[in-house]
């Protein structure tokens, strides 16, 4: 049995390079999901705080569904269900062809909708914290609704929502672990394969936990920087 150091070395004998590939996939997945989730979450929050009841209802249905389903289930629904749906649609239009939705995109979509549901709640409470006077001030100097939103509200919104969103980012990093169930080579899957082949589960799952912790620590440092940069422009209260 090779020593522990061989097992976690780089190169053909060791698993470290495979595991780092897994780290890359994990970070890439989370990074790809973030802008999508934030954008969708923002618009859903807009809908939920609008004066139009139909919009509010539509937004609430969205949040209820995707906060209520286990992420693993949402992932399977997207991976198998949307797959089958698109397949049927494509076959209907042009028989004999096949369109594939790959696991990375499925993971991105599934994690994105879940992230956006929680993010919409964070944005919603941030919206509530901004006084109506800000909107009125914008209109009074002749800005359109869109301009007010972009130039006046959004910067304040980001500052208020940041702690909540930072928390969601950390949760997202951990949630990426579920894509190992659809064969995507993230940290957990690669360490799982290594554990299985080398029969050293404690070493490799311990390594996996450590890697996630390192990612969390790096993220916390990054988030602190962002918070500092964002609140620099804030007037002393």
């Amino acid at each position, binding site marked *: 049995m090779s020593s522990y150091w061989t097992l976690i070395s780089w190169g*053909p004998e060791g698993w470290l390079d495979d595991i780092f590939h897994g780290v890359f996939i994990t970070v890439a997945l989370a990074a790809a999901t973030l802008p999508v989730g934030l954008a969708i979450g923002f618009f859903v929050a807009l809908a939920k705080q609008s004066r139009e009841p139909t919009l509010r209802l539509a937004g609430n249905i969205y949040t209820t569904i995707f906060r209520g389903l286990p992420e693993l289930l949402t992932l399977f629904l997207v991976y198998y269900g949307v797959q089958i749906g698109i397949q049927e649609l494509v076959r209907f239009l042009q028989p004999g062809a096949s369109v594939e939705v790959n696991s990375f995109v499925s993971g991105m979509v599934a994690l994105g909708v879940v992230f956006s549901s929680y993010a919409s709640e964070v944005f919603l409470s941030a919206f509530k914290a901004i006084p109506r006077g800000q909107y009125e001030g914008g209109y009074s100097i002749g800005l359109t609704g869109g301009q007010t939103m972009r130039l006046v509200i959004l910067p304040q919104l980001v500052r208020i929502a940041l702690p909540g969103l930072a928390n969601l980012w950390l949760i997202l990093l951990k949630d990426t672990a579920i894509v190992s169930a659809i064969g995507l080579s993230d940290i957990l899957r690669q360490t799982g394969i290594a554990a299985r082949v080398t029969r050293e589960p404690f070493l490799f799952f311990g390594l996996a936990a450590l890697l996630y912790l390192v990612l969390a620590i790096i993220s916390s440092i990054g988030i602190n920087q962002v918070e500092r940069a964002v609140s620099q422009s804030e007037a002393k209260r």
Partner: protein
Amino acid sequence: MTISKLLLAATAAIAFSAGVASAQETLKIGTEGAYPPFNNLTADGKLEGFDIDIANALCDEMKVKCEFVTQDWDGIIPALQAGKFDAIIASMSITDERKEKVDFTGKYYNTPSAIAGPKDSDLKGVTKADLAGKTIGVATSTTHFNYATQTFTDSEIKGYPTSQEFLLDLANGRLDAVEDDISVLEEWLKTPDGACCKLIGQPEPQPVEIFGEGAGIAVRKGETDLVNKLNDAIKAIRANGKYKEINDKYFTFDVYGAES
């Protein structure tokens, strides 16, 4: 690798892909990668095993290039149906249940199911009565799982994602017995981790309705062209000795079994 196309973009690409269902330069083959000695992953991420060698030999016969895709066992048929690969060469048994979803070639090997347990096990045999009250580990979505749940109704059956996990649990004493293909168990028993355990026996009888006619290659329903090509290739490698060469590399006996 493959990039997913949005439906609009795909509609354009469909014009090119229509009718390309079977005749390609590259044949994408789906396999599990967690079932030594048939298919497993090495430390440098490569696939090796009986299934892989057979697949490469078949591709040589058919003058196409083999490209392998690993896929977890539970989702391997849906992945085939979704087009992630064009054939499954992963020791998949040909059963009627599966025939409803996919088309199979003829078998490329057929080995029986067996039961293994700890060396100090007090199991005298592998009948339902012998195993009553015991905990048996099997991989889900396999013929062995179906057999175990149907036959050993007095035992506790635990389902694992792959054979590797239940072998791990057998070695650390969580299970009284495991059921899987005899070649897989024998291969494991030869390794240092398998030194704890021994083969207990082979369940009798092994009905074809549950276990199928042997391991075959699965393709999407309706792709008879590919099925015929693969069948011809299988016959060819059996005739020209390539099959025996690969067989002997892994096993001391002929895994093909009786000619069907």
